């Protein structure tokens, strides 16, 4: 009797397993079958439902989803592998890639191995890397929304990962909660625009990547905004690096990177706005450095930088230099930078201060000796500490700008909203009536 019962259970379990395996395999094959049946350069219109992955695209087709089209991976391997040029994939949600960090390959929701593909309007969740370009060039990637997995950031992959991939156009994406937002490794000539990255380790991470161009991107609430390492001739234009305030954070870090150009960027409320170490001949021009703990942190190993037309507003320490002063220039063609803390005389009214701006500080010794000094930069005591050291002549010259510019206000002030005015006015009226009644009593 017992044996018969056992046999019965075994059969049930076996059938159940068989049914499940068969169903998954069938569903996985369904999308692969549809892809295989689509002719070259044909269109595959996906329905408003969930398709099981993983799939491989090996010919140029256009695969279009609709509002609720989901391609769900097996949680092993890449969900979609594109191994053909000129594939167009748009309007789908891709989820459940493999997460195995011990495998020889790093998995992604979508992995590109060929050139000139288009990825547009794609949402990616619960995957190791979002999009991975492996030696894949001249692709157009836009409107990609990657959300990291819950939990520790360090154990996750990157939002968009480029590996030996050149001349790609990446635009209008949002990335949150991944390890790095956009990671480039040996990738040159790429353009990244209008992309928002938040709550990651590095919003942007360049390694050995040259001649890339970034404009109008926003990197906020990351452990660090952008880290440019061993990379040359990159252009960063009109980006926003804000609220990157961890214990070792920065808006933008240049490490062993030369000849880069940073123009018209906003560095707002970072622990360090711009940080440079072992980097040379970079040009920092027209940037707005506002309310950072340290505006610019320069290590003595960095030289030949040019800082011009930058606006330093309400930073706790505008500039800190360590390891001695190098030959960095704070002016060019008779024009320097805007400094909010320097009272300037401009008797000839040429909008340039009549005397050089010499910036002293004593905080650098604290920061140089012990990283915990960053914990106190927001403290009201730091100003007293600076004053005491000023009296005791323990401070050092951080920089000399011979042509400081007269401060120009750049704050964008929104027009006053009517509901707010009405609310405040009603509050004042209520308060006034209450006081009047009280007096009458």
């Amino acid at each position: 009797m017992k044996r018969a019962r056992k046999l019965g259970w075994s059969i049930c379990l076996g059938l159940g397993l068989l049914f499940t395996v068969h169903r998954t395999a069938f569903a996985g094959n369904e999308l692969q079958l549809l892809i295989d049946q689509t002719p070259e350069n044909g269109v595959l219109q996906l329905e408003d439902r969930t398709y099981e992955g993983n799939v491989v695209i090996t010919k140029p087709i256009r695969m279009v989803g609709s509002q609720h089209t989901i391609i769900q991976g097996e949680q092993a391997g890449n969900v979609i592998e594109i191994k053909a040029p000129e594939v167009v994939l748009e309007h789908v949600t891709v989820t459940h890639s493999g997460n195995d960090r011990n495998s020889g390959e790093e998995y992604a929701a979508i992995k590109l191995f060929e050139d000139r593909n288009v990825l547009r309007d794609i949402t990616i969740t619960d995957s190791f890397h979002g999009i991975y370009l492996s030696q894949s060039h001249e692709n157009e990637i836009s409107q990609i929304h990657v959300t990291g997995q819950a939990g520790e950031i360090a154990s996750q992959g990157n939002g968009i990962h480029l590996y030996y991939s050149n001349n790609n156009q990446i635009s209008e994406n949002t990335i949150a909660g991944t390890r790095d937002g956009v990671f480039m490794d040996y990738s040159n000539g790429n353009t990244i625009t209008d992309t928002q990255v938040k709550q990651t380790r590095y919003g942007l991470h360049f390694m050995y990547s040259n001649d890339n161009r970034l404009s109008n991107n926003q990197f906020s609430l990351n452990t660090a905004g952008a880290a440019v390492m061993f990379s040359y001739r990159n252009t960063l234009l009109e980006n926003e690096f804000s609220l990157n305030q961890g214990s070792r954070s920065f808006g933008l870090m240049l490490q062993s990177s030369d000849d880069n150009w940073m123009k018209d960027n906003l560095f707002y409320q970072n622990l360090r706005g711009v940080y440079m170490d072992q980097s040379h001949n970079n040009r920092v021009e027209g940037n707005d450095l506002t309310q950072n703990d340290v505006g610019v942190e320069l290590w003595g190993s960095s030289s030949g930088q040019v800082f011009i037309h930058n606006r330093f507003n309400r930073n706790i320490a505008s500039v800190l230099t360590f390891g001695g002063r190098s030959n960095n220039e704070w002016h060019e063609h008779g024009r320097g930078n805007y400094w909010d803390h320097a009272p300037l005389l401009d008797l000839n009214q040429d909008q340039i201060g009549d005397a050089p701006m010499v910036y002293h500080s004593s905080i650098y010794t604290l920061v140089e000796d012990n990283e915990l000094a960053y914990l106190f930069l927001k403290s009201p005591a730091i100003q007293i500490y600076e004053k005491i050291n000023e009296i005791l002549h323990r401070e050092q010259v951080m920089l000399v700008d011979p042509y400081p510019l007269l401060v120009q206000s750049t704050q964008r002030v929104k027009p006053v909203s009517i509901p707010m005015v009405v609310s405040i006015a009603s509050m004042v009226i209520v308060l006034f009536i209450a006081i009047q009644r009280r007096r009458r009593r």
Partner: protein
Amino acid sequence: MTYVMKEWKEQSRGKGLWLAFGMIAVISLLLLFQARALPTEHSFTMLLVSLFEMNMYLIPLISLFISSFTLMQEKEQKTMMILITRKESYFSFLVKKSCAVQSITIGMYMIWFIVLAILAKQSLGFRSEHFLAFLTTTVVLNLIFNQIGLFLGSICTHRMQLMGAAIFTWFLFVFLSDLAFLYWLPGVHHGNVRVFSILFFLDPFHASRLYLDTSLGLFSLEYMSRLMEAIVWMKPVYFMLMTTVFWVGLSLGAASLCRGRVWSK
């Protein structure tokens, strides 16, 4: 409840409370207008950070003065003698008085900041969990400095003495303690980092700022150096709880003990 009603009547009839909250209201409205110039996604977060920085200066000052002077008033008007002779110990009087002062000042802050949040919601990217974290830090700072104020009110015998003590305490917490930490910094290493951490987070501003910054997502506890990891060895909320319990308990106990000694003399 009787104590709360009595306290409310006394405070609302005086000008001190209204002047203090008028100041808070004006500054926070100015900060609100300033925050509107920022990108909408982060403007509310930045408003909360700015409000916290305002609180760092104003709450200690306001709380120390309001709570210490209310106790001094009880002494001067002999109402304390009447209350205590009714078979009530000084400790129980102090606890009730503390509850009354705390509920009125905290209540006032809550009402004002909720009104401000309603105004902020119209033009900034309001986030309720961030606002709650900010309110928590406001309550914590109030609790601590009100209690320290009541301690000062207990031990001081003259108004001038009390004024000096309150100003010194404010200066000690806002400036001197950090200045002492700054001069100690070069001597901090892995061997004594735990002692430094405990003393650092016993400062109510440090504990509440860490809690607020981590709650707002500004300060990440990932990717810290080993020294920093040794500093932040507990969850920020526990540091805040630790400092609250320490200062409230110490102030209450010390006030009760010192007062007893003054009487015995």
